[in-house]
């Protein structure tokens, strides 16, 4: 059970510690005070100029952009403080005393989060206040309350995302130097996000930032949840004893590949030669163990199909199958794509999904692989809107190769989802690294089913589906 007493005591001490160190507090305070003033001065000076030059539309967007910059500068300090939170304490040998206290792992994590968030968020809000006040006093311009609220919430959400990710990184790193190197995984996406936010503001799409805020909120919740899940004192202390050994990693990975899924197998399994054991025991076990993600992904794909259909039937541009027939008669177009191209395309899509899933907690698996189903649903809806039978369309265009490709996509999505979640929720007794290796081993095992399925799908799509389409729509011509 998590109490707030411990986290608050911990956070108070750390905030005082930061503020009592003038090497940290002085630059933070100076930047927080001076930078918004300079920004407000620049905006106040530039706005009338822009308006005189006829750029009134742009001028109205410069103020929230300046506000966002003023708010973000202090937020950037949070990364340094967060990386320092565990790795720095470990470097100074102060961590173990803290670990011997009755604080639970979750209380420690929350205490550190609070400690690291409080100064930057406080300074960020102060910077916004300074910017707004300076703009009002210097240029007699008010910032709308909803803009203040949006930028304020965005800054807090950005801080929570950065801090939660950095605290996880800091708790997993063996030293402060290691944590700083790993911080690139946080800095680069955040830099991209800031550019996106700036772009949205400058092109007058500031309202989209509410969606960005919602996304950041979800991401922050996921990262905090991940932090609480993967943070434990055992890991922090055990790192003293461990050396990163590539040989050991390889050995672990090999043992995960060889081990029967779900624990010890019955004795008859051990007597089977490897391919038989894989297809008659390991694979069914893997599918059984992953039944929840399989069902989730299958449900999502079906939902995507339905959503696409509903959007498609409302489309103002229904598909005219007469054109498709013309294409078929001419005998050119996408239907003539060959087996190799289709197979490589599908496998490349899965490979990209695997990589992105690791960095997106599995979200990439859901988004990237659901997208084709939405598109298929959309086209089917357009076909229906054009007066054709949608089931006939699906049976001709999708079903022949879909019989193989859809199960393969569901399985790939489910195992990629598990791979992404391996970071967030390692199985009991596994470290994050072991959990990732285990999920990767499972994915490789299931690839022994996926590759043949994708090959069959590619063959069908290249050779059988066009024949079926011609047979259905052109009467076999």
């Amino acid at each position, binding site marked *: 059970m998590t109490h707030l007493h411990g986290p608050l005591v911990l956070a108070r001490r750390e905030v005082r510690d930061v503020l009592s160190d003038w090497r940290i507090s002085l630059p933070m305070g100076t930047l927080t005070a001076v930078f918004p003033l300079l920004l407000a001065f620049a905006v106040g000076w530039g706005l009338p100029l822009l308006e005189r030059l006829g750029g009134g539309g742009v001028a109205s967007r410069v103020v929230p952009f300046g506000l966002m910059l003023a708010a973000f500068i202090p937020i950037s300090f949070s990364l340094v403080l967060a990386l320092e939170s565990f790795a720095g304490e470990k470097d100074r*040998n102060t961590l173990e*005393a803290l670990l011997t206290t009755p604080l639970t792992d979750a209380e420690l994590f929350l205490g550190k989060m609070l400690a690291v968030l409080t100064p930057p968020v406080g300074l960020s809000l102060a910077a916004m206040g300074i910017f707004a006040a300076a703009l009002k006093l210097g240029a007699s311009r008010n910032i709308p309350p909803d803009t203040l609220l949006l930028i304020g919430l965005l800054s807090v959400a950005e801080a929570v995302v950065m801090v939660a990710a950095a605290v996880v990184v800091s708790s997993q790193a063996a030293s402060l130097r290691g944590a700083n190197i790993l911080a690139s995984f946080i800095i680069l996406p955040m830099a991209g996000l800031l550019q996106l936010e700036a772009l949205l503001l400058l092109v007058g799409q500031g309202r989209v930032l509410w969606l960005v805020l919602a996304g950041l909120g979800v991401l922050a919740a996921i990262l905090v949840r991940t932090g609480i899940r993967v943070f434990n004192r055992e890991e922090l202390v055990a790192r003293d004893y461990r050396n990163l050994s590539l040989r050991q990693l390889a050995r672990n990975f090999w043992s995960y590949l060889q081990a029967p899924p779900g624990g010890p197998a019955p004795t008859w399994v051990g007597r089977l030669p490897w391919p038989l054991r894989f297809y008659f025991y390991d694979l069914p076990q893997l599918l059984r163990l992953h039944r929840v993600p399989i069902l989730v992904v299958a449900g999502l794909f079906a939902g995507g199909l339905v959503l696409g259909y509903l959007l498609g039937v409302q489309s103002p541009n229904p598909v005219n199958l007469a054109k498709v027939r013309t294409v078929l008669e001419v005998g050119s177009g996408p239907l003539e794509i060959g087996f190799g191209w289709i197979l490589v395309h599908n496998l490349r899509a899965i490979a990209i999904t695997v990589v992105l899933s690791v960095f997106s907690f599995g979200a990439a698996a859901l988004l990237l692989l659901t997208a084709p189903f939405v598109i298929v649903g959309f086209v089917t809806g357009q076909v229906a809107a054009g007066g054709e039978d949608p089931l006939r369309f699906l049976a001709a265009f999708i079903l022949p190769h879909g019989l193989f490709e859809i199960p393969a996509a569901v399985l790939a999505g489910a195992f990629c989802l598990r791979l992404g979640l391996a970071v967030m929720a390692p199985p009991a007794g596994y470290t994050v690294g072991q959990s990732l290796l285990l999920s990767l081993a499972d994915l490789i095992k299931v690839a022994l089913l996926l590759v043949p399925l994708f090959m069959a799908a590619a063959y069908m799509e290249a050779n059988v589906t066009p024949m079926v389409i011609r047979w259905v729509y052109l009467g076999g011509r």
Partner: protein
Amino acid sequence: MVEAVALTKCFINFWALQGISLKVCPGEVLALLGPNGAGKTTTIRILSAVLKPTSGRATVCGHDVVADGPRVRALVGVLTELPGLYDRMSARSYLEFFGEVHRVPRNLLRRRVSDLLDHFGLGPVADRRLGTLSKGLRQKVALIRALVHDPKVLFLDEPTAAMDPASAWQVREFIVGLRRSDRAIIISTHNLAEAELLADRIAVIVQGRLVAEGTASELKGRFAGPPTFELKFTGPGEAAQRALNGDVRILDFGLGYIRYQVADPARNPELVKRLVGAGVGILSLTEVSPSLEEVYLRIVGGEGTH
């Protein structure tokens, strides 16, 4: 009060503990001895619910260290191997911080911190930044940190390391006092004299295994071999050697003395008679008590068996 049964701990690539069992009762001090990397700190970390054992079971005051970690940590005080203090805090605020984390009521905490600081002679530096204190003073602050919540069980890793002799004496006296108040204390140390002085029992850990356990005199009796005697004499040393040779194991000899081991001390009168007969003038014959260091070296040298 503290009980461990068959504790093992594996850190992926090596076994730090391989079946440690021990028991410490209230008012008892157990010293853990062993070479660096033997598993002493890992044992303490498991018993203080910082690490989880790979197998085996441990309880502190009846609470399981795995299932009830926060409760166990509330009951124990741990002096870590390195003091690890927050340098920018004063000793007083540092100790009050740890007391607050342990939920010690504020008034009681202030009184206790002041009393402990005064007891260890830290009153005059209580409000100085910890970063400015000497190693010995920092070690004392770390020790007080382990005591600030009045724990029932204490784990002290090298409690007098870095202390001057007077401070070390003061800490040892304090530990003796704590024992009288029915606390269970486990000390991990390389200071064998300290272990012998403070501990009721000594456990020697080598490569994650408990290879010997008992009181200091039990260990000496078990591992020091036959009793050693020192004979001082006048006259030629060669004559004394010749007279004893074959019947005893001569460990050392020099001008006017010879040191030997004899399995049966009752044979000494006969040996003395033989020496006198050989013209050796006996000045004294005394039994030499083996030091704990000798015993320890024998145990860690591979002669120990649990």
